[in-house]
């Protein structure tokens, strides 16, 4: 077991140590004894960007299968054992990774490690046609519930396809298409496991009321004998020009409650200072209740009910900034578009005021404090920086980096990226009454989600 451990710089007293098992599993530990709970989080370096044509949605469908038992865990045992021990658990799939996590009462930590190790090492012993068919139906219902049966439900999927071209690994979203979900076979799932699920393609974080020595001994005991392999196929290259080059626009006539303008921009890759600057720019323009767009469209022009920007940070392709404006009453899209263009152009010219910088930095700092407020949130961030950037310690200094960005850098990134020739635009025009036989069109509805959750929350189980 290799240790690269010395508790280095910290944010708010948080520290983390790093370790590596002989089979390549990276382990990050962080102690916090305030509450008797411990979080286990396991990130596998595989997401929807690794999927091939005709098998979109496979990474996420596979994530569901990880909850269907393994060599020593029967059926739904994963859920039963964790919940029976007073824990909570879930798994999610995004473009760049798949994560599995449990938060346990501290004295039940060992159980969570045993469970994660069992499915990492022996899933195929339990995986069968029956689970595959059942979870295929569950996931198709997840797709219907979250996207197809909701007004604007497929907007994010459409914008993604417009920002990342055909054939690009991020062209499709993690939920996948109904046709591909239908086409996935048990053999596809087995092959997916053999290719991507290995200790040397994962990072395990354990955070909370833990004894680091004892925790490491358990990790070694349960995970240490799982064989590594080099079978992983790297994702297709995600690099793209910094800007799209022209405005791409789609106008949809659908049965939605109001007009809407949504847009997506290519932004700098996550992990760069420019990405933090872009985050600040989007926050000044469209984050919170006193952003420029909210003030202009909702308060002054009164053409919109909501107007906001969100950012989907991506490491392996340009990040995406998305704008969501829902029109008020009979307001015209043309007026909304003109106002958005004016505000963005003015911002690219002037940059943020000192008060706006202070506000945006305070809001982003607050987001970080919220994410780090739970042991589960901390474990997830440590995994994120370890998997995507090779260094979990970066999680502990992320706030400082956001606070170091200057107003000039914010203006520069806005001028370079928030331009009409770097965006995909989706316009919704409501249709009135829909005849029953055209109802299928409704199912292609659409949204960049109101909660800003975007692609990142394809939960295995939504709420407990």
């Amino acid at each position, binding site marked *: 077991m290799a240790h690269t451990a010395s508790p280095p710089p910290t944010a708010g007293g948080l520290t983390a140590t790093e370790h590596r098992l002989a089979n390549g599993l990276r382990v990050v530990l962080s102690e916090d004894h305030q509450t008797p709970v411990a979080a286990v989080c396991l990130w596998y370096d595989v997401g929807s960007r690794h999927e091939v044509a005709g098998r979109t949605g496979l990474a996420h469908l596979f994530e569901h299968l990880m909850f269907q038992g393994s060599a020593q865990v029967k*059926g739904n045992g994963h859920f039963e054992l964790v919940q029976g021990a*007073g824990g909570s658990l879930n798994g999610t799939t995004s473009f760049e990774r798949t994560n599995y996590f449990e938060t346990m009462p501290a004295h039940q930590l060992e159980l969570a490690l045993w469970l994660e190790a069992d499915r990492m090492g022996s899933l195929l012993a339990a995986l069968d046609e029956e689970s595959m068919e059942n979870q295929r139906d569950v996931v198709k219902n997840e797709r219907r519930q979250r996207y197809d049966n909701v007004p604007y439900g497929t907007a994010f999927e459409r914008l993604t396809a417009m920002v990342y071209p055909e054939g690009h690994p991020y062209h499709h979203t993690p939920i996948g298409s109904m046709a591909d979900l239908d086409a996935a076979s048990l053999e596809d799932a087995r092959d997916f496991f053999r290719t991507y699920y290995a200790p040397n393609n994962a990072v395990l974080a354990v955070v909370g009321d833990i004894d680091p020595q004892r925790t490491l001994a358990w990790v070694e005991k349960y995970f240490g004998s799982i064989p590594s392999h080099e079978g992983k196929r790297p994702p297709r290259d995600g690099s793209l020009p910094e800007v799209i080059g022209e405005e791409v626009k789609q106008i949809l006539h659908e049965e939605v409650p109001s007009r809407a303008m949504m847009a997506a921009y290519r932004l700098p890759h996550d992990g760069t200072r420019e990405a933090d600057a872009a985050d600040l720019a989007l926050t000044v323009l469209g984050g919170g209740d006193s952003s420029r767009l909210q003030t202009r469209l909702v308060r002054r022009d009164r053409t919109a009910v909501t107007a906001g920007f969100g950012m989907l940070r991506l490491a392996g392709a340009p990040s995406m900034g998305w704008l969501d404006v*829902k029109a008020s009453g009979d307001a015209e899209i043309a007026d909304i578009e003109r106002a958005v263009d004016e505000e963005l152009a003015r911002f690219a010219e002037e940059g943020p005021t000192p008060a706006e910088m202070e506000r945006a930095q305070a809001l982003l700092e607050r987001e970080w404090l919220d994410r780090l407020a739970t042991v589960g949130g901390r474990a997830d961030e440590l995994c994120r920086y370890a998997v995507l950037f090779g260094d979990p310690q970066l999680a502990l200094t992320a706030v400082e980096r956001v606070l170091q960005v200057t107003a000039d850098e914010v203006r520069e990134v806005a001028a370079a990226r928030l331009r009409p020739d770097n965006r995909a635009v989706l316009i919704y025009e409501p249709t009135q009454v829909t005849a*029953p036989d055209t109802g299928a069109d409704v199912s292609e509805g659409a949204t960049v989600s109101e909660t800003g959750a975007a692609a990142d929350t394809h939960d295995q189980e939504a709420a407990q």
Partner: protein
Amino acid sequence: MSDATAQNGMSMEFHPQPRGGEPRPWAFPAPERGELPNGLTVLRCHRPGQKVVAVEVNLVAPLEAEPRDLEGVAGIMARALSEGTDRHSAEEFAAELERCGATLDAHADHPGVRVSLEVPASRLTRALGLLADALRAPAFPEGEVERLVRNRLDEIPHELANPARRAAIALSKELFPADSRLSRPRQGAEETIRNIDAAAVRAFYAEHVRPSTATAVVVGDFTGVDLDKALAETLGDWKGAAAGPRPVPPITADDTGRVVVVDRPGAVQTQLLIGRIGPDRHDRVWPAQVLGTYCLGGTLTSRLDRVLREEKGYTYGVRAFAQVLRSSPEGTGASMLAINGSVATDVTGPALEDLWRVLRTLAEEGLTDAERDTAVQNLVGVAPLRYETAAAVAGTLADQVEQHLPDDYQAKLYARLAETGTVEATAAAVAAFPADRLVTVLVGDASQIADTVRDLGIGEVTVVTDQ
């Protein structure tokens, strides 16, 4: 391990399932209760490590206090609290809050208005000052109130288009008598929202918002914060005449078994909401009802999802739950007991048939001891996880105040859950969800689902359309 061993087919070494260690003690935090000179009740609770402080303020401004022709005024007032004060314009107020890294939300529900502030501890005093301004001297500018009224009107079609929201509106209308405020949308309907202006908001505020009937709950890491001083300089400055307690009207509902289909031609799923009313937390049966409801539909391994999701694949998930509507000190309150979820359109009939079979089997055979034990272990065991953040603790403490419960209610609930047996949990679940006393709302394609639902014998079927 090397690559060679993997290719040779060697597998991992298995170990028996570990047993848990000794649980470390944890208790739901006990708040310290006090009162400011202006009559404001304050509950405070120091939570080391929680750097984002949560403040919840309960205002006794219930929806049933709204004039009938101005329903929605409580919601508009709640939103308008942050639209400018005697010190700041609406735009300045929003910017000032955000410069503190603070979020301020206010919403109106049946028991009253709740104002929730969250802010990093380092900027607590500044944010408390803004919160106090909003409560003490809201400007309710005419232009801003007019905008909020328009926004609310804009929201209504979005609510009606959302299957889950649409189902909730339909169930309330069906369940409660037409003269009850509970039968109508919490945030008001178009015909009453249109009547609301700044004068109406000011009148509602003047009549129902005052420190002597309000409670503030403050939770977080107070290290380095002089909370007494901060409260005295902010919320302590809020003035208002005293007022007696408001009577809480009793709640009645008609749970005759029946079905309402809200027609959505072409919908790919049917949204289900199946409900009635039942006891609130004042009732001795509450812990047993919590256990029984969990066993029925609390999670993916509960009875409903075991069949509907994990066996049949009809749904992404179906849940059973109890949500307190309104409580009174006398125990005349009630909760909504309900089952919700969505199922693929073409299996709506079979899914409902299975759902009712689960309910009937529960009534005939009862819960098993193993189910009860797992439920207790989960519900009691997750408490320290559930209450990790200051906001979670503050929310529960404020709920207790709003529901006229003692401050140690939640702390004692865990002991009561642990003492509840299988027989009691079964009886409570069966009483909560009797197969013949449930009102079913289905938002979906009537042409595809109505006939199959008629054949199920779960009550008379009515189809309604929104157009």
